[in-house]
């Protein structure tokens, strides 16, 4: 196991945001994390990357308890992370943003950093934008650049927080291909938060479902699609927002 959370709980005052969540990610695996709005998906990412403190349970990375490490130490160990809204240096070029994110290479010569930035930009497909200021990037490219940014530390697992939100068809397809190729190209596992069921079902090997801070179900995409409690959680609580996506996804799969 590369990443493992064991009975992780997070509280905000009296509110239990996460209630003993256990999740495990193997090397080079793509794992989906789904759930209605407010289910605690981003909070789980925050607990893993160290942005919010864990009230109970342990977070293990490569078997080591990292629950007390600060954010940047976890990042250097090999936990990459993107945010829902990428906040990069807007006035600086993509290349400069990548250089700044190469924390592991801080003491190396600039040539090595440039090499890595070039390779990652090439693999992610943003090489042509290398010298463009981030504020001039189209939305889809910005997401790809943020993923490239997260890859600069050579992570062993990347946490992608709704990378496809707000993207349209062609951009979304490109991003999906990129995500699917990450384990092979960069030797990393991927945990993916995504609202679009189609995206998750196609990209992920396994899916974890959160609801109201609890783990509702986990399993292969087909199991999740037909899982009674998952369908109820989506249809019963959030029919307008999330229901139709699941239904359409499910309808395609079940004959």
């Amino acid at each position: 196991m590369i990443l493992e959370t064991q009975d992780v709980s997070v509280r905000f005052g009296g509110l239990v945001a996460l209630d003993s969540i256990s999740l495990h990610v193997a090397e080079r695996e793509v794992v989906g994390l789904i759930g209605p709005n407010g289910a605690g998906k981003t909070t789980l990412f925050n607990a893993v990357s160290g942005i919010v403190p864990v009230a109970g349970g342990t977070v293990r990375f490569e078997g080591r308890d990292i629950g007390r490490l600060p954010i940047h130490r976890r990042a250097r160990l090999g936990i990459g992370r993107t945010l829902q809204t990428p906040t990069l240096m807007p006035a600086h070029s993509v290349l400069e943003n990548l250089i700044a994110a190469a924390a592991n290479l801080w003491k190396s010569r600039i040539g090595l950093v440039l090499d890595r930035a070039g390779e990652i930009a090439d693999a992610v497909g943003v090489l042509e934008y290398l010298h463009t200021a981030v504020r001039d990037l189209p939305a889809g490219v910005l997401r790809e650049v943020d993923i490239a940014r997260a890859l600069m530390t050579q992570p062993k697992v990347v946490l992608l927080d709704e990378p496809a939100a707000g993207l349209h068809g062609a951009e979304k397809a490109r991003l999906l291909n990129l995500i699917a190729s990450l384990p092979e190209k960069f030797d990393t596992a991927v945990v993916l938060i995504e609202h679009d069921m189609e995206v998750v079902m196609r990209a992920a090997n396994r899916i974890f479902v959160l609801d109201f801070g609890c783990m509702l179900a986990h399993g292969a995409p087909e199991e999740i699609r037909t899982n009674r409690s998952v369908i109820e959680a989506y249809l019963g609580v959030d029919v307008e927002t999330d229901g139709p996506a699941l239904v359409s996804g499910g309808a395609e799969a079940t004959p």
Partner: protein
Amino acid sequence: MSATRHGNGTALAAKPFRVTSILPWYLGVGAAVTALSLLTSGYWAYVIDTVAIFSLVALSFVVVSGYLGQMSLAQTAFMGLGALVQARLVAIGHLPFLMALPITLVVVASAAVVVGLPAVRLRGVNLAILSFGFAVVAERVIFQKWLLSGLYLSGIPFGRNGLGSAWFENEQHFSLLVISTVTALMVVIRALGSSRWGLLVYSVRDGQATAALSGVNPTRVKLSAFVVSGCLAGIAGILYALLLQRAGWEDYSAFNSITYLAMSVVGGLLHPLGALLGGMMYFGVPQLFSTVSFLRGSQFQVLSGLLAVAVLVLRPGGLASLALGRRYELHLVAPRRRPHRPPLPSPASGAARPSPRPAGAVNGQGRREMDALRRSCQAPTASALATLRSRTGERPVR
């Protein structure tokens, strides 16, 4: 395809920063100011010295407020600490000037860490008030009660003989020292602004969470910027005390911080040129106008206030942005002059971006640019990746 999208094709729009490319400008301005100070004497030489010294104060704001984006009103405390500690060590302790200087800078740097630590959590107005509180405490307690107790409450006499050489007793020689020190520090700060350290500072400024998630330690980056800024202010304080030949607490009163901040903002916070323009605007231009009979001092103050408002409304980047335009933000590798915009989707293709990209063509162009960049950075071109793998023992990027 590639040719149309990249316009001029072969030319590499992006260039890595080189100190040598800015040196002529900075040395030229330094030489011009030196010439000016050699031509003048008495009052005007004094005015030129104050402009240089307060440009250095503004430069300390460039680092902490411009590069790092934090509000610090503790700069007078750093100036005063520099001046008073150095004066005590040299004038009372009879230490050689250059031996006392490192000790003074360590004291100032420690104070900068004390002010910088809350900045790890606080921002904006809260940090401004906290740092201002530190400046007040420094003025009332550290300066008046500790460093200037008893005999020296009115200030420590700090003549230029403290510099260790009779050569500096000459007014023009002292000007030369001030101007060359300020010019050198301007070059250093300009180069730092385009260094990898600078990039880390901007990344913390523009998104602390993202920076931390990329493995950057925001605490260390912030403290380092505070220490650099504090040392600049400390050196300015020492020079100012030498100029006045006296180190007293009134010259480093906490309330002056607000004027200095205003000076830095009007000049421009993101570039050393802004520091120079701010210093000229607040410590040179008023003196110039005071010789004009039809503008009295108070009238000029109203005028300069209006001018400051006008600058900030019309050009929020300060006077420096008027002169520099898009080069105002400092870069390690300059972005393209004209932003590269992908072509709009043709109605026939239906896709927003050309979905199967002309990979060979576009990436070929990008690769050529990377190669050129690598060459200009004097990095190994061929075996860099192999070296990287063997050196760090890290897993390969495929």
